[in-house]
């Protein structure tokens, strides 16, 4: 652990005063074991209170602080200074409207999430006990249950940048989570939704999404599994 000077270069935009975004640099002193989020806090709390970003849990489970960090989509609370270096460039995630500094409008993202029926659908009466599920069936969709809806995947997708109608990787991940859950009965409905023009066929397997996911979800693989389920009519 050692004190280091970090240069934060932040892309800033204030809709109440700015016509267009501009860059601002902050030099802050932090421990090299601190998170990038800690460095942002030092800048906000000691230098410029107008610096604006979302955050909550600060350890990678709430998904609030996705941003473009040195060119790649990351959660600021999961990146350690000594790993990323002392020159750090921060921009808002791409493909969603910027509201202020690093804060973007998440509503289009959540609307796409809602469009894939992201909840268990099973109309049979389970009775008093739990529905049984084998460990193998449970493992089938384990990877996609990890999603925290941070939007790092969707906003790393070059197709999504060019076409905001595309439902995007995160919505497909959340559809996958139910399509491959043995307890669910609405796989067909979800596959129909994802077979539309705005669905999985927009994906060009750039793998940006898998690389961006802070939870290590194999996003591209999940998308491919959904594509195969549509093509071969099986889950």
């Amino acid at each position: 652990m050692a004190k280091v000077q970090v240069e934060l270069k932040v892309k800033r935009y204030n809709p109440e005063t700015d016509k267009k975004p501009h860059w601002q640099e902050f030099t802050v002193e932090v421990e090299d074991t601190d998170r990038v989020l800690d460095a942002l806090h030092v800048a906000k709390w000691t230098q410029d209170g107008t610096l604006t970003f979302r955050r909550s849990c600060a350890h990678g489970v709430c998904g609030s602080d996705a941003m473009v960090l040195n060119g790649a989509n990351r959660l600021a609370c999961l990146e350690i200074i000594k790993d990323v270096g002392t020159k750090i460039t921060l921009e808002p995630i791409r493909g969603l409207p910027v509201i202020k500094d690093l804060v973007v409008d998440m509503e289009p993202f959540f609307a796409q999430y809602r469009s894939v029926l992201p909840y268990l659908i099973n109309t049979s009466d389970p009775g008093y006990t739990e529905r049984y599920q084998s460990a193998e069936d449970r493992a089938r969709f384990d990877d996609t249950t990890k999603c925290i809806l941070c939007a790092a995947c969707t906003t790393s997708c070059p197709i999504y940048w060019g076409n905001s109608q595309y439902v995007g990787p995160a919505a497909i991940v959340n559809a996958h989570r139910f399509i491959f859950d043995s307890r669910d009965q609405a796989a067909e409905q979800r596959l129909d939704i994802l077979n539309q023009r705005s669905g999985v066929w927009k994906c060009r397997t750039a793998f940006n999404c898998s690389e961006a996911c802070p939870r290590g979800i194999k996003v591209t693989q999940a998308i491919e599994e959904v594509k195969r389920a549509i093509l071969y009519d099986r889950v």
Partner: protein
Amino acid sequence: MNVHHHSYDAVIVGAGGAGLRAAIETAGKCRTAVITKLYPTRSHTGAAQGGMCAALANVEEDSWEWHLFDTIKGGDYLVDQPAAEIMCREAIDAVIELEHFGLPFNRTPEGKIDQRRFGGHTRNHGEAPVMRACYSADRTGHMILQTLFQQCVARDVNFFNEYQVLDIAFEDGRVAGVIAYDQATGDLHVFNTKAVLFATGGFGKMFQVSSNAHTLTGDGPGLLYRRGIPMQDMEFFQFHPTGIYKLGILLSEAARGEGGILRNDSNERFMERYAPTVKDLAPRDMVARAIQTEILEGRGIGENKDAVYLDLTHLPPEQIDAKLPDITEFVRTYLGIEPKTAPIPIQPTAHYAMGGIPTNIDGECISDDQGTVIPGLYAAGECACVSVHGANRLGTNSLLDIVVFGKRGGRAMADFVQSTDLPALSKGVEGDVKARIDLLKANSGKEKAGALRIALQEEMTKKAFVFRTDESLASALRTVRDLQTAYESVGIDDKGNVFNYDLTEALELSYLFDLAEATIVSAQARTESRGAHFRNDHPTRDDANWMKHTLARRGADGSVSLSYKPVVGGAYEPMERKY
């Protein structure tokens, strides 16, 4: 400042586990607005790890009555026993219901919900640890939060995302509305409503070393406290034994449930000395004190000898990957340590408020020591105090609390609004909020909220943590009052309307100060040691004088006064707490 007006049958404030479960209950029954300062899936329920206890007996013999006994003993007999009985009985239904909602629990070989051991949960009244915690790897809270949110999406629940409630309005002694600040625009929204359920979570950000999110600032309890609602049992704040060294990030008790061991500088399994029967799976208050004692007596590890080790190195690597994937990844990320081959430096971390807004078993808020209900006011989850956790919450019982009492509170509120009219709301109820915002924006004061918050957190961690004395608490109280005075000259840099977190952080800090003051005053008065509240100058439990709940009330002049109400007993008489 623009002001908008809405009217709803019911309002839920907060969208973690308790708020979402309540929203599921009111959906389709009454027009409900869920107002949340964070997108629901950002709530800190998602950070809960280890599990949710219910005596399903899927893996070994168990009964809800044993669960009840453990909860009462774990809470050091400050638990209201009828309330805890409801929680432990309804736990079974609550877990089954979550499974039906789609929650992906880990499974037994037969396909049932799997269960594992957890601190303080025992077979047959303390004989040995029992497998009672239903879980989903070490991300059970994440799964609960996601599942409840999914069910809210299915029911088209009406969310006001990133709206922060800053005040409540009463008319003739009943709830009439809340005043919310829209972070995206800076506009105020007045919600005229018959009933409000607060589910705003904890306030662990009054401490420096804390497992809590930055946003856990006690807004719900804080604003109610200012409006004269008492806060119950504030001196009981849980310090979780195993936070990542310095950062305080939670490492679940499930690590010890899976076989992890605490060790000191000589590699000794020191919990054998403190809890010979259940060892590392003793309740959190006892383990946290054991760790602090090891540190204070010079047996800590590391450069400053201010930590101990959590050792997982003897566990099979595949068990770690399958059962504890997230917490071991935190250790790799933040400490650069591989937990499969090296022990993890940990220290106690501020974790959970047992105290909060006093409620009965239907989530109705209580205004005094007589059980008087405030019409239309409800609370559930960590911000509430039923009291099912007493002086020390058992691990997993918080996830249980939020689903059981979130549901009960939501149901009671939905019933209540059927039988009452929308109260008239006086003009200008938003005036106080508006004045606070205008003042902060106009103030050119030299004090910065960030610096004052750090000062508060350091002081609370130094003087109102695992071990307390009259002297340490008196000193902390002086500091907090000085900080409150300094707060009057806080100036903010951001004078704008759009996403002004500079402003909302300053507003949140004022709640933290008030709740810290209530915590200290309550702790100073309680001259005994019980559960998480330990006084070096009064090191034993004093049942003759202290089988009672504290109610801290804030006067109009800002002074704090205390009153007490008896613990509601039941089948279990207080006995010595040995594990």
